[in-house]
């Protein structure tokens, strides 16, 4: 009787949970690896022109010659998707990194200085956050000619807010610890306390926020391109591919939208899986759902 009770108490932390954990890590890492390899290797190895138009082969369903089929002007969709993913990933990574740098700088300044500066900066953050960020993004993109960099700027300038809040909260909690008192008593300047003791403490959180922001930024790029505001239509990006394929979907041709859509979903889930494992590692107590 006592044995069964003990078993019931100890079992939930057994091997079952760990194996799903490892499975998630492996699947996510494999998917991410395939994506990155495809993006890096296919364009130089294939030696094919993704822009090559073949009107005789337009809107062909998937075949061995064109595994993902062709679009409405006969371009190979596999190649277009890989090139599109390349552009979308570039936008996602650069925008996420820029947003994280801005967010960390703002959040760290507010948290480390505290007092009036903190209140003023955080009210500014609240004010910017009160505007719907897609709307603000559309506004920023509309000020420039279509291209990659306006999209990067638009996504970066609308996505640093959450990082600033996370970093500020972490810095505030670190700031009140005795180790910071000890540093102050040891003669450390404000700058030294921030750079040597506070920032290294928030970097894992900021890094995690940056990784989670990559798929989010990719979705934003796709949304802006889908609205016709992001990248010019001749540049293959996942958003422009889905946008141009919209018409053929109504005619019953499913492949021109499905495959770019999958190229958007698979890296998103892979990044979310990896970030989830990372999050549990740096803070095992925080097991809330991933925010995408």
């Amino acid at each position, binding site marked *: 009787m006592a044995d069964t009770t003990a078993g019931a108490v100890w079992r939930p932390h057994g091997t079952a949970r760990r194996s799903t954990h490892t499975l998630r890590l492996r699947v996510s890492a494999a998917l991410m690896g395939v994506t990155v390899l495809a993006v890096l290797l296919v364009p130089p190895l294939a030696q094919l022109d993704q822009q090559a138009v073949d009107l005789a082969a337009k809107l062909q369903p998937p075949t061995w010659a064109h595994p993902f089929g062709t679009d409405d002007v006969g371009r190979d969709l596999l190649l277009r998707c890989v090139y599109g993913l390349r552009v979308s990933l570039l936008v996602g990574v650069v925008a996420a990194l820029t947003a994280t740098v801005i967010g960390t700088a703002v959040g760290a300044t507010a948290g480390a200085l505290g007092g009036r500066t903190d209140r003023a900066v955080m009210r500014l953050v609240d004010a910017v956050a009160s505007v719907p960020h897609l709307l603000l993004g559309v506004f920023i993109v509309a000020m420039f000619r279509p291209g990659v960099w306006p999209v990067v700027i638009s996504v970066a300038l609308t996505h640093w807010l959450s990082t600033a809040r996370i970093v500020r909260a972490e810095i505030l909690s670190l700031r009140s610890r005795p180790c910071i008192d*000890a540093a102050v008593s*040891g003669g450390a300047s404000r700058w030294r306390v921030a750079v040597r003791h506070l920032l290294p403490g928030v970097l894992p959180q900021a890094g995690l926020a940056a990784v989670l922001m990559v798929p989010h930024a990719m979705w934003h790029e796709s949304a802006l391109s889908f609205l016709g505001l992001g990248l010019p239509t001749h540049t293959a990006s996942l958003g422009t591919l889905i946008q141009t394929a919209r018409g053929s979907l109504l005619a019953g041709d499913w492949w021109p939208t499905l495959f770019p859509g999958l190229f958007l979903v698979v890296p998103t889930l892979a990044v979310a899986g990896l970030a989830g494992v990372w999050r549990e590692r740096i803070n095992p107590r925080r097991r809330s759902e991933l925010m995408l």
Partner: protein
Amino acid sequence: MLELRSVTAGYDRRAPVVREASLTLAPGQALGLLGPSGCGKSTLARVAALLHRPDAGTLLLDGTPVRRWRHRAPREQRTAFGVVFQQPRLAADPRLRLADLIAEPLRATGRRDQIPGRVTELAEATGLTPDLLTRRPHEVSDGQLQRACLARALVLRPRILVCDEMTAMLDASTTAALVAAVERYRRETGAALLAVGHDRTLLDRWCDRTLHWHEVARSRADAPT
């Protein structure tokens, strides 16, 4: 010479933790401050070490009133105090090896040339072996970490030591070793000591004079409501 006059301090102005506390610490004197847990001893120790701005009252350092606290205090005033905290785990930056932990105040004040000599000297004084100096805080015990924290507090040769329940979490032999290290330092330099704690036996044996909290500050029960 450190003098606190009617110091009121806390984390919310409407409900101060320390009310009208006054005490004087003469050069070279060892003063014990005894009180039950939660009475405000640690807050008073932080005010005394210029780490927490009081809401009211005056703090005189060598007869000069102190007007700025924490980073705003001049560096030579801040570093006149060596502070040892109750919980070494929270008082040590988890990323620094013990040698870097001890050397950090020297780096922060631009005295890198003194690092090798001072770290070796203090490691010996506090009973840390060279092997321990290469470890990070999570790889050593509380007692060993507290020795490193004491070494860090002594590294800038402070004139006043503030030990806030320094030995509350430690066993008798580590307590004895740390107290002996503090006393050796005080004999060599003539530094003053403010030892905060709730162990009357220890404070009576360690300090020249032991004050009870109610002799220093008004208790919260006396507060006007």
